[in-house]
């Protein structure tokens, strides 16, 4: 039925487009996912991630473009002929079958007789031993999601598509499942295409991360690279948070680019600049900012902003501060709760400093102002 044994080769999407009526869900998407790699797809809600996966699985016919597995164009192959399995975002468990039969489904369809052991093993992997004979309706949300996971994993396909496979699980279980997924992926050499909203998940598990926006890929690369040096303001604020300060390039001295923003003068290494002229955003990640009480405490070679603490919010691992600058915008600062740091309370004056080597420079449309990831006390309303 399908050549499961021969390695499939890389998964390539070539100019893949999908429109629903006048609406373009996936827009001329091209990318290559090397065989056996772990590929994470990130993007805002409704940007076309599920649609992309569905086209790879054969459940949605591309409006145009190709899906290639190795050299084979599989875009017109029936779903059951593709060595591809999916963990569906909506689970799509078979309501009339019990959990055991749900998980055994793929094996049975491939004519495998003795599925018992494999199924039990898989159920115990997702920690659902003893639930074999329940119906999906008798499970909690997270349990259902785990069944969906087991049902796809058991088939050891060449490409596994995971559409938020762990979204309904608590952190602890999610970590355990991540470990399992990673283990299976490296052991068996399956190509994973993983949609997730959990950034940490994407960062730790993926070889390559692609950030999608409105049907297109905005940036693609190893997670650390994307995080450390985002290509666009969207990526900078979508993957983690960034403080983007609106400024203008005023010159450069070979290695550094000089930027004026809100009257202050800053510099960024040329290697960390996406542009070297015109209006720019000077970006610094909140965890790269350090808080001290006064400018005097700023180490040499660092640059800084002064302001008033407007909010402090405790999130366990760290405390997130907001520093209101002289020109009214707020800057976000993360301070790890490692026990050693000084505590600030709203109203305190403070200085946030950073090492210029941790800043980055992005092009800016004239008119755009500062951008900071919003925080809890500041309503945002409808603008995205």
């Amino acid at each position, binding site marked *: 039925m399908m050549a499961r044994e021969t390695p499939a080769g890389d998964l390539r999407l070539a100019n893949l487009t999908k429109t629903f009526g006048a609406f373009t869900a996936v827009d001329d998407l091209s990318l290559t996912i090397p065989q056996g790699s772990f590929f994470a797809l990130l993007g805002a809600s409704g940007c076309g991630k599920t649609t992309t996966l569905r086209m790879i699985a054969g459940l949605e016919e591309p409006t145009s473009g190709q899906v290639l597995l190795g050299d084979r164009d599989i875009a017109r192959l*029936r779903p*059951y002929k593709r060595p591809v399995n999916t963990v569906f975002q909506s689970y*799509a468990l078979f309501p009339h079958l019990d959990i055991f039969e749900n998980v055994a489904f793929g094996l049975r369809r491939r004519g495998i007789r003795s599925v018992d052991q494999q199924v039990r093993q898989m159920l115990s992997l997702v920690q659902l031993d003893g639930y074999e004979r329940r119906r999906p309706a008798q499970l909690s949300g997270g349990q259902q999601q785990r069944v969906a996971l087991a049902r796809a994993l058991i088939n050891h396909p060449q490409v596994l598509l995971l559409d938020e496979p762990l979204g309904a699980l608590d952190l602890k279980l999610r970590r355990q499942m991540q470990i399992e997924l990673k283990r299976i992926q490296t052991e068996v050499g399956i190509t994973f295409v993983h949609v997730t909203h959990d950034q940490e998940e994407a960062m730790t598990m993926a070889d390559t991360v692609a950030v999608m926006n409105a049907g297109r890929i905005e940036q693609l690369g190893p997670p650390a690279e994307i995080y450390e040096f985002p290509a666009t303001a969207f990526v900078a604020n979508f993957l983690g948070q960034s403080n983007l300060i609106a400024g203008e390039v005023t010159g450069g001295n070979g290695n550094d680019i000089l930027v004026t923003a809100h009257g202050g003068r800053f510099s960024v290494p040329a290697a960390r600049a996406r542009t070297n002229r015109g209006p720019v955003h000077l970006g610094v990640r909140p965890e790269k900012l350090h808080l001290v009480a006064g400018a005097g405490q700023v180490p040499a070679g660092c640059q800084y902003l002064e302001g008033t603490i407007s909010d402090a919010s405790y999130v366990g691992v760290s405390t997130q501060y907001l520093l209101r600058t002289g020109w009214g915008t707020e800057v976000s600062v993360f301070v790890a709760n490692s026990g050693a740091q000084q505590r600030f309370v709203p109203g305190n004056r403070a200085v946030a400093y950073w090492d210029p080597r941790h800043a980055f420079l992005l092009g800016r449309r004239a008119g755009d102002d500062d951008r900071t990831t919003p925080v809890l006390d500041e309503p945002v309303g409808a603008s995205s």
Partner: protein
Amino acid sequence: MGVALLVLGYLFLPIAVVAALSFNRPSSRLSYDFNEFTLDNWRNPCATSDMCDAVLRSVQIGFISTVAATALGTLMAFALVRHRFRGRSGLNVLIFLPMATPELVMGTSLLALFVAGGVPLGFWTIVIAHVMFCVSFVVVTVKARLAGMDRRLEEAAMDLYASEWQTFRRITLPLVLPGIVAAALLAFSLSFDDFIITNFNSGTTVTFPMYVWGAAQRGIPPQVNVIGTAMFLVALLLVLASSLRGRQARRAAVTAAVPSPRASTRS
């Protein structure tokens, strides 16, 4: 629920009369009143050998036509719900019309066809006729169920290596089954109970409704009531038995005590 029980009562009311009369020793062949209690009718349910033959024949015809009509109708329902194709509207009229056509008209015109074609009348012409008028009912019933079925489940099946046929067999069919069962029940009752069309196309074959109809001309033998009651009971018992068996099997299989789903939801 209360209303439902009342309605069931309404449905059973005549059956209760029939059941009561099945224990009746009628005062005369023409009387349809309760006269005297007796078990004779039940001891000897075949008033005449003809009647039991007729019942048997009706059951056979019912089964064959039900299977055929359900199969044909279900396929058509699938095509109609799942596909766009040319000639859809014409086909829909074709499916609709048999229900709107007086039975008499269907009976006589079909008879004319058989006579013109030189087809000998009998068992199989009855089956042909029954399949013909049951198909429409099946199509409409199955379509009602099929409309709005969750396509994602079928997609998931396909994703899990189930070919179109396997997807149909393992996922679609079980999910549409309540509709198909309803349609089959409808078809069987239509076939089992049909008199008019059957009468025209039966040749010298006699089915149970034909027998009853005829018997009614000269007074209904009480055994007809026995058969009526028995058919009713047999149907109930078959279902009861199968559901009890299913329950036992399920019990045996369940390791952890698992209750029925949403046992406590209210509406």
